[in-house]
Structure formats: C-alpha cells, structure tokens
C-alpha cells in the first residue's frame, strides 16, 4: 500500500527572506574583509559590535525564549574575563587555549548558580541573578593574586604569546570576535531550527502547553542558561584580552554587559534572531550620534526601550518585518498547500 500523495509541503523560507539573506551576505563579506580596508580603530569597533551581537543573542535565547529574564549576565562576562586572566597569567596556559577554557569555566560555574537562582520565579529570578553577580564581583575583589579591588593588567609576555606584533594581534583578536559573533548567530539559528528549538519556541509561547506536549521545561531552561553563560564567558575573556586590563567593577558591570544588552534586544525585537541584530545596529548608531552628550545617551536608549516595550513590544524588527512577512533567519515552518482544494476551511 502506498501512502496518499501529500497535498502540502513544509516551507521554511519565503522569497522576501531569500532576498534579505543576500543583504546579510554582503554585510558578512564586509566584516570578513574589514582588516583589508579598515584601520585598527575600525577593527576595534568591529570586535565591539561582534561581542554585543553575541551577548544580545545569548540574552535573547534566555529572556526571549525561555522567559528567564536575567539581569545578572555580567556575572559570566566577568567570570570569563577573570578565568582567562587566572589561566594565562597565574598558570601560564597559552592565551588562545585559556580563552576557550574561560568559556567552559563560566558555563560550569553557571550550574551551581542555577541550583540557587532557579528557586526564584519570574521577576524575582531577575533580581536573584543580579545578587549572584554581585557576590562574584565582591568575591573576586578579595582575590589578591588577581589584583583585588583594583584589578590587574595582562603582562606583556602573555600579550606577546598571542602574536609578536601589534598589527597581527589586532587581526587575530578581530577574527576571534567575528567568529564569536557570527558563530553565536549561527548556533542560535541551527538550534531554533532543530527539535530542541521547537521545544524552545513552545516554551516561549506557553509553558503549560509546552509541558503538556512533553517538553521538559526545566531541562531546556537549564540548557539555555548554561549555554548563555558559556557564550558570555567567551565574550568576557575576549573583551579583557582586547582591553589588556581587568578589574572587578569593569568585569561585573551591570550597565555595560547587561543593561546595554537588554536595551539592544528590546529595541530590536525580543524573541527573534533578527531583533538583536537590528538592536545592535541601532545601539551603535545612537552611540555614534550622541557621543558628545554624556549621560543623555543612556537616557535616550532607556526612553527608546521603554517606549518600544509599551507601544510595540515586538520591537523595531517586528514593526518592519511582520507586515512584509520578512525573515532573515527562517525558523518557522509554514504549510504550503500544493492542491488548493485540499486546504481545510
């Protein structure tokens, strides 16, 4: 017996999304070739854009999909940075190995942290993660071999291990950042297209419904939490390798590593892959525009995020893309009816 021919097929991309993908391709080429046409200032900006992209994707997976609104991601940026310094300076691990290990260490430390903060629900989880980040900051400020409260600089010997000359070092750090930025987006994309992504989307839309169709909510949430911590740790290690200096206040800054990231995701559009990308563009554009106005920059960013959350919670990307059916990273499954007559009313 042969099965009846299907009257529909499942599509994942639309014509508009294929066109838009070409635009993304151009941007990727521009980023890939940046060291050929840009100076070291451009590369530094490029790295910064990449690590905000990665942090925003990680936070979006947490808050946008699993409802784990963390205000404590600076914990893992800081831990990643400090793990990198400890490994490379105190134990002589080669810098690039230390970088990778730092991400793993951050993810590992997220496990006991999750044990504590997962006892708090919803909004209390948010503040609980913040307390934990403060505990890490205050604890590391007491570790004298890592410079205590004032922090420490990366010794020249370690810096030289990355590459002998400054120009080559800039290029290496740039490509590491780019890899991290693009890698995080691709990881989020392939994850969301997989079976696990379906679980994640189900949790985003309704936790109860997700659990009722067999999604293990707690396990999925824990996995996302650990992965977000690992990404943030890698970013942290890279940030402080680039800055060549670390201190508890800079490493565990809620403003730099969490507030900005939250604004990026909210402004761009929470719960999509494109949102954090759009948000990052807006964030850096606003920063360039308001560079001379000090605190007004953060006030504007905060106001924009508040207005968007109240007026258009789907964010700028939602406002632009939804009417056009635009998707850069198609993770949905659409039914396309081959035979119009078979379509149920």
């Amino acid at each position: 017996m042969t099965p009846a021919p299907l009257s529909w097929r499942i599509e994942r991309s639309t014509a508009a999304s294929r066109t838009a993908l070409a635009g993304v391709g151009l941007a990727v080429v521009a980023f890939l070739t940046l060291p050929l046409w840009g100076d070291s200032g451009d590369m530094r900006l490029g790295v910064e854009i990449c690590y905000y992209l990665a942090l925003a994707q990680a936070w979006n997976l947490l808050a946008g999909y699993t409802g784990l609104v963390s205000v404590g991601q600076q914990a893992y940026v800081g831990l990643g940075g400090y793990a990198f310094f400890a490994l490379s300076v105190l134990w002589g691990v080669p810098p690039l190995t230390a970088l990778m290990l730092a991400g793993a260490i951050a993810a590992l430390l997220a496990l006991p942290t999750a044990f504590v903060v997962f006892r708090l629900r919803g909004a209390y989880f948010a503040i609980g993660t913040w307390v934990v980040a403060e505990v890490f900051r205050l604890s590391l400020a007491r570790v004298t071999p890592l410079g205590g409260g004032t922090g420490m600089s990366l010794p020249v010997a370690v810096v030289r291990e990355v590459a002998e000359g400054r120009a080559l070092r800039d290029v290496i750090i740039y490509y590491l950042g780019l890899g991290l930025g693009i890698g995080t987006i691709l990881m989020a994309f392939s994850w969301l297209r997989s079976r696990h992504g379906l679980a994640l989307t189900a949790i985003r839309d309704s936790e109860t419904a997700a659990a009722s169709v067999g999604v293990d909510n707690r396990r999925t949430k824990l996995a996302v939490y650990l992965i977000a911590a690992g990404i943030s740790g890698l970013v942290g290690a890279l940030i402080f390798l680039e800055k060549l200096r670390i201190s508890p206040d800079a490493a565990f800054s809620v403003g730099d590593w969490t507030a900005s990231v939250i604004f990026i995701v909210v402004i761009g559009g929470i719960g999509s892959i494109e949102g954090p990308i759009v948000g990052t563009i807006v964030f850096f554009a606003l920063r360039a525009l308001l560079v001379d106005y000090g605190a007004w920059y953060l006030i504007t960013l905060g106001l924009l995020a508040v207005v968007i959350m109240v007026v258009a919670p789907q964010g700028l990307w939602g406002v632009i893309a939804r009417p056009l059916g635009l998707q850069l990273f198609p993770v949905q499954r659409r039914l396309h009816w081959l035979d119009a007559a078979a379509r149920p009313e």
Partner: protein
Amino acid sequence: MAWTNIVLQGTLLGGLYALFAAGLSLMFGVMRLVNIAHGDLIVLSAYCALVIVQATGLHPLLSLALVVPLMFALGYALQRGLLNRTLGGDILPSLLVTFGLSVIIQNLLLEAFSADSRRLQAGALETASLRLGDQIAVGVLPAIVFAMAIAVIALLQLLLYRTALGRAFRATSDDAETAQLYGVDIRHVFALATALALAIVSIAGVLLAIRTNFDPSIGPARLLYAFEAVIIGGLGSPWGTLAGGIVLGVAQSLGAAVDPGLEILAGHIAFLLVLVVRPRGLFPRLAD
C-alpha cells in the same frame, strides 16, 4: 559585649532595610510587579529632600512633609500613566520598563547633580547617642530610623487588614478580575498601591540621606537589599519583611566586624543561604 553591640547596630540598620523593602513588597503583593527602579526612586527622594532643604532651610526630617506627598503623587502618576500598561499575564514588559526607568532616573540624576556624593545635614542629631550600660551606646538617629520602620510597618498592616482600601488591595492581590466584578477599579487601586509604596520609599530615602552619603549610582544596591529583606522574610508578610531586614542588617554588621570588606558580601551570602535552606523565606504567607 562587643558582639552584643554589633548585633544591636545591625538590628537598627535592619530597620532601614525593612523600610526599603516595604514598598517593594507592597507593589509585588498587590499587582505582582517587581519594580527594578525601586532603589533609584529611593535615591530620587533623597535628592528631592536635598533640593527642598537647600531651598527652604528646613530640617531634613521636616522636609518629609513635602517629599512624602510629592513622591505619593509621582507614584500615582507613574502607575496610571505608564506601569498599568505593562501589566498582564507576562512579567517581561513590567520588568523591562522598570529596568529602563532605573537607567533613566540614574542618568538624569547624574546630569542634574553630578556624581559627587552628598549628604543631608541633620546637625546635632547625627552624632547624638544614648548610653545603654557601660559599653553599649545607641545612636539617636539609627534608633529613630528603627522606630519609624516599626511605625510604617504597623500602619501598613493596619491599612491592609482594617480599611476598605486594604481590603481592595488584598482582593486585587488574590484575583484582580473577580475584584473588578465587585466594583473595584483596579487601575485606581494599582495606582494607589504604587503611590503608597513611593510614599514609604520617600521616607526611606530621606532617612538614608541623613544616615549616609549618597550619589546617583547607589540605587541598584538599595534595590538588592530591599529584595533580599523581602525574600528572607517571606513574601507578603509585613512583619516578616522587618525580620528579613534585621537578618540582613545583622549579617552585614557581623561581616563588617570580621573585615570591613566583607560587609556587603556577608549580607548577600546570608540571603543565598536562606534561599537554599528555606526558599520561601523565614515567615512565608503568600504563595507566588
């Protein structure tokens, strides 16, 4: 004797933390809204008092007569104009909007008053102390703060359980939709809850400003203390909040006695321990 003294000072400090926490707890209790800008509103009240004291020459404690109604009005307007729009099934909007407010308030204060640290001068009151025996003395100011915390919490308890407004608060807390069916205007009730919370916040802010130096950046740490006191005490219980504040204050004093650098850390660790051992707090009343 030294340890008794430390615990006593910590208990008095706990009164201030209970004041921080009472407003946060009230807003969460009535409308399940966790106000991330809570600490920054404490600092905002401190600056309000500073401006009033500088303009009128009033004693800082008397400035409360102006700061409290001002913050009450701000609270009502904030809830009615903005925060009511963020409430609903999903906690994300209210959380992110109050987070945005926190950053906005901090940076506006920074623009207006710079990052310099300030203090409200309360004259002789700052250094006055009461002798309790040979080796123990209590500052008059910390004692006043503690007494005010008890008064505020007692009044809050009375309001919640003995007045029509309190009944509306509790009804809305239990089930907002059903409360509406019985003629409760929940938008108005929510606004009154926030107004009342900010009135308490303003008392906390002025007392904080007399007790210690403040600058625009200290808000988030006050939010964390308030939050810790609420969780240690157990959700939804005003007297539990006072106990939570005291546990936190004592933990910080003990930490500071061991090593000044341990003060804040000891408080956070006490909180995490309670969370692990008794996740619902020491005196739980409300189910989340």
